[in-house]
């Protein structure tokens, strides 16, 4: 049980970081990044390849690019960089003044293609089998701490990283930079006419979000020692988004609660406690159906989420929206 709990903590920490990262892109900057999960996968795969050693070596039956044997904590740094690089390349191509729905479609299709290509091309990241037997960081400690103890230490590590990411998010969220991003999201020509260099700012937030996503991928692989295409279908971005939109876009604590509800409470607990109905794998498929339905419900009834963005108040007198005709 303790084993399971520490695993949950790690999953929640990684999912939460990822959610905050996507919230920066989607909530602050208005970028409909339906390819977000690809950044997490980039980080996850690179973490695996730089820890497994050169391809065809010890784990002779796995083929991949970028093999290396980096010691802790370098692989985590590399995973963050990988997410950032993929974000940079994708961002340079797609972040242009394009109608938002077309842009969303491009991101989505990119996510679909990426999974297909990686699944099919065995030489990239071992195809649809994915990578496995990734050595855990500082595994030597396992002898003294025991597997359970080691896992709790790892969970604590993830919590610390998560807290650091939160500090970064909050600092950025309070800044003039974030305000400029929101302005560019609302009305780009008006923002540019006020001196805001919107394209550069958007690329910055895209890359930072990508790095956080990459890091979250690395943290996940550090624990579960494996990563495969099954874990980053396009629908995964949906799960992250549903958590964000349920909790409240642009509200950091709302995102936390929403992510907990969707990623942890819903997915894990249904897996645990719901009786295994039908055939194996059915409940997984049904979970996605429910997530889709949940998405529609939230979009219809409370598109701003349960906990809306907290507005800045400077005037102590309570503002009342005035009726037309007066001022």
């Amino acid at each position: 049980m303790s084993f399971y709990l520490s695993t949950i903590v790690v999953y929640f920490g990684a999912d939460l970081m990822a959610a905050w990262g996507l919230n920066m892109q989607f909530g602050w900057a208005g970028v409909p990044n339906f390819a977000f999960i690809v950044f997490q996968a980039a980080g996850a795969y690179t973490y695996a390849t730089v820890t497994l050693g050169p391809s065809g070596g010890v784990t002779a039956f796995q083929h991949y690019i970028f093999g290396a044997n980096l010691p802790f904590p370098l692989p985590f740094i590399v995973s963050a960089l990988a997410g950032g690089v993929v974000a940079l390349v994708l961002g340079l191509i797609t972040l242009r003044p394009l109608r938002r729905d077309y842009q969303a479609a491009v991101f989505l299709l990119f996510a679909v293609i990426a999974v297909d290509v990686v699944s099919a091309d065995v030489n990239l990241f071992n195809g649809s089998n994915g990578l496995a037997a990734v050595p855990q960081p500082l595994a030597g400690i396992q002898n003294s701490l025991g597997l359970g103890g080691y896992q709790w230490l790892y969970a604590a590590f993830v919590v610390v990283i998560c807290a650091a990411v939160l500090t970064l998010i909050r600092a950025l969220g309070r800044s003039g930079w974030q305000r400029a991003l929101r302005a560019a999201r609302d009305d780009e020509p008006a923002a540019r006419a006020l001196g805001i260099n919107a394209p550069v700012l958007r690329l910055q937030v895209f890359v930072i979000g990508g790095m956080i996503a990459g890091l979250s991928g690395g943290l996940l692989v550090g624990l579960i020692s494996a990563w495969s295409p099954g874990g980053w279908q396009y629908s995964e971005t949906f799960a992250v988004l549903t958590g964000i939109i349920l909790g409240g876009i642009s509200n950091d604590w709302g995102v936390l609660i929403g992510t907990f509800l969707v990623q942890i409470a819903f997915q894990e607990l249904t897996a645990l406690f719901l009786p295994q109905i039908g055939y194996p794998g059915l409940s997984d498929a049904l979970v996605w159906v429910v997530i889709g339905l949940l998405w529609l419900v939230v979009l219809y009834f409370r598109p701003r989420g349960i906990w809306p963005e907290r507005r800045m108040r400077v005037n102590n007198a309570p503002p009342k929206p005035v009726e037309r005709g007066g001022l």
Partner: protein
Amino acid sequence: MLQARPDEAAGRIDHAVLDVRDVRVRYGGVEAVSGAALKIEAPQVVGLIGPNGAGKSSLLAAIGGQAQSASGSVVLLGEDVTRLPPHRRARLGIIRTFQTAGVFDGLTAFENLLVAGVGEEGSTLRAALGTRAQSRRRTQAASDLARQVLEEFEIWHIADLYGRELSGGQRRLVEIARCLMRSPKLLLLDEPTVGVAPHLVDRIGEHCKRIRESGVAILIVEHSMEVISTICDRVIVMASGQVIDDGPFDVVMQSGSVKEAYLA
């Protein structure tokens, strides 16, 4: 608050505020502006009038940078801005409003002004990652100015309302107030009184005059002759993409060019 800048006004006698020559703007296959020219020597309120399709907004876009001119030049206080993108022109002092009142819906009225006022250094990523004390100092100056401007425009009470919660007239006022956060040298107003209640139109006119007094040149596209007659020292008439008259209000009104423009 809107301090006059005698030092700047004195130093710039040799440069016109705005010098536009032979500007051509094409949209698709249509030439919206064909060889327009105008010069604003000193701070004044210049009205730009003409029928729909005359090219007024396109000319404004060419000056503001939203549209590229195929030829000619746009010079602000001696500096050639013809090839510069909008955000660079804004940093040099050309600030504009839009026909659709470009107020940021997801920001409060106060934040609308703040985002305009913090300046380039304050809106960068580097600044965001800096210390709390530094950013607080930066925002403090802008906050104080924002409060001042909102109070001058008598809309301090709506400071905490989101852009989308404001009425049409309030949006216009916020948009114009926001322009002042950047100490513009040249203010381009694109039909600022459309859809605004009459008493507010008067207020906007008053504010324009005060802005002019503080040393800012204003180029205002307007359909309302009342507004033009009240605040404009000078009027430019456009028709079919060209400037057909340019002079003091009374002279232009007498000359019959306005009638000609609308009948063309």
